[in-house]
């Protein structure tokens, strides 16, 4: 990533407080973060630490109550209007009445692409996530892992440079998850996208990321940002190397520190 210093996400003193019937709930407080083009940034922390909220703020699905945030130099709303990002949710969120290829076509129809362009992108992204041959299946005919891959293909077809992923593999078993993690890294290397990835799995965060943002709850805040020293090429067994375990230990320490603060 030499020479790639373009800032994609810039947050300064970002805070978000939800007004609820039980009084205000501080979801995020004082988050300062800069994400550069081509980075793979993981957000890790226990539930309630605001990692998903932060992703939703980037996506203009939640409004911050203090501080500033910009995406490619724009406000989140402008970025959303400019269709600057693709979003992958916790569940595949495929429309059950559409076949897989029609699901991937959904954002393309909304942008108003021609049929030919739609076909080209569907084919390309289905190849990327290795789902070719399943174009005309309905979502229920696919396994959970395949559904989630289809939803990644849908986000990729959108062809934004920023990919926001909210615990996309959280509901999958470990074998499928390992496989998808490998695929995701390959995909990231091939597409050069910037990826923000929310997870609560330490190995997953360490395996995937160039940078790990450790967060802690009540109030949701960033407690540590860890630069990964792992090489870009990452076979699965890199997870047994001392280097990997060292980073994982630091993440674990960060998470524990955040917790003890609370008790």
């Amino acid at each position, binding site marked *: 990533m030499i020479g790639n210093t373009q800032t994609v996400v810039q947050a300064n003193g970002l805070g978000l407080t939800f007004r609820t019937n039980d009084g205000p709930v501080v979801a995020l407080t004082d988050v300062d973060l800069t994400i550069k083009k081509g980075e793979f940034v993981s957000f890790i922390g226990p539930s309630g630490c605001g990692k998903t909220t932060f992703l939703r703020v980037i996506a203009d*699905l939640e409004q911050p109550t203090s501080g500033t945030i910009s995406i490619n130099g724009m406000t989140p709303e402008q970025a959303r209007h400019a269709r600057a990002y693709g*979003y992958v949710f916790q569940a595949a969120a495929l*429309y*059950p009445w559409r076949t897989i290829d029609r699901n991937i076509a*959904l*954002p393309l129809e*909304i942008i108003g692409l021609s049929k030919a362009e739609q076909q080209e992108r569907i084919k390309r992204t289905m190849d990327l996530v290795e789902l070719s041959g399943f174009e005309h299946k*309905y979502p229920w005919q696919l396994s959970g892992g395949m559904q989630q891959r289809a939803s990644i293909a849908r986000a990729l077809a*959108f062809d934004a440079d920023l990919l926001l992923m909210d615990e996309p593999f959280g509901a999958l078993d470990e074998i499928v998850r390992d496989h998808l993690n490998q695929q995701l890294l390959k995909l990231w290397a091939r597409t050069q996208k910037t990826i923000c990835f929310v997870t609560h799995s330490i190995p997953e965060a360490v395996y995937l990321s160039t940078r790990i943002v450790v967060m802690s709850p009540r109030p949701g805040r960033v407690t540590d940002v860890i630069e990964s020293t792992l090489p870009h090429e990452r076979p699965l067994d890199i997870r047994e190397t001392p280097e990997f375990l060292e980073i994982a230990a630091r993440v674990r320490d960060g998470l524990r520190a955040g917790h003890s603060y609370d008790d």
Partner: protein
Amino acid sequence: MTSLRSKIIPVLTLLAGLVVLWYAFAVYMNAPFQRDLDRRAGEAPGIVEFIGKTLSQPKPTVPAPHQVATNFFENTFLRNVTSNRSLVYHAWVTLSSTLLGFAFGTVLGIVIAVGIVHVTTLDRSLMPWIITSQTIPILAVAPMIIVVLAAVGITGIVPKALISTYLSFFPVAVGMVKGLRSPEKMHLDLMRTYNSSKTQTFWKLRVPASVPYLFTSMQVAVAASLVGAIVGELPTGATAGIGAKLLLGSYYSQTIDMWSALVAGSVVAALLVTIVGLVGQAVQRSMGGRPA
């Protein structure tokens, strides 16, 4: 074969039980009149002959199943369908206004639901009125609709159809409000991340998501439409239709005719509900519904 065992046999068993009860009830209800007749004629029939007589009166209090069945069969299959003695003819008259009213009601219900889902003012103001409209007894409203419309020169099938509309728009409106609001938050968020317009979200998400709700409420609505059409025939002095047949039967104590008109009405209702259900299943299958 499993559907035969699990569905048809239980239904037939229950039906057989009901027929036996019906016969017993018919004997019990018709016996006083028969005893009266026998006393005047000075006859003293045996028990079997007496029961036979109670089940073959021309104008019984409660007609026996076979009397209704015979009447129904004759008036359905043995009459020219254009004759006003044919049940097919009467059923068609009622059915045509049922279908027209059902079509109006479905469209009206959908329009109201779309309004309620998209316009906050309508959401707050319309629902109480819609619910109130259904608490007014249709028997009271029907004559007024027909008299008022006749006064402005609208007669024939339309006033009857409007009574069907009055009954059938309600389930469709309520069902469609629920259906159009059924998409999960995640599906709506997804549309938002695409910066999709309200119209796009409506056609690509809300409408397809509401289809199962639409057909369920249409099944209720079509049955209500039939009731509306029959009720609409009562105050008009209509000479044709299942409602008219019921009314005439009650004027002349032709109980068997009334009962067979009732059976005709039930058959039409069952057919309508089944057809709407089958269309719904076909549509949902074409939309990738998982076979049950």
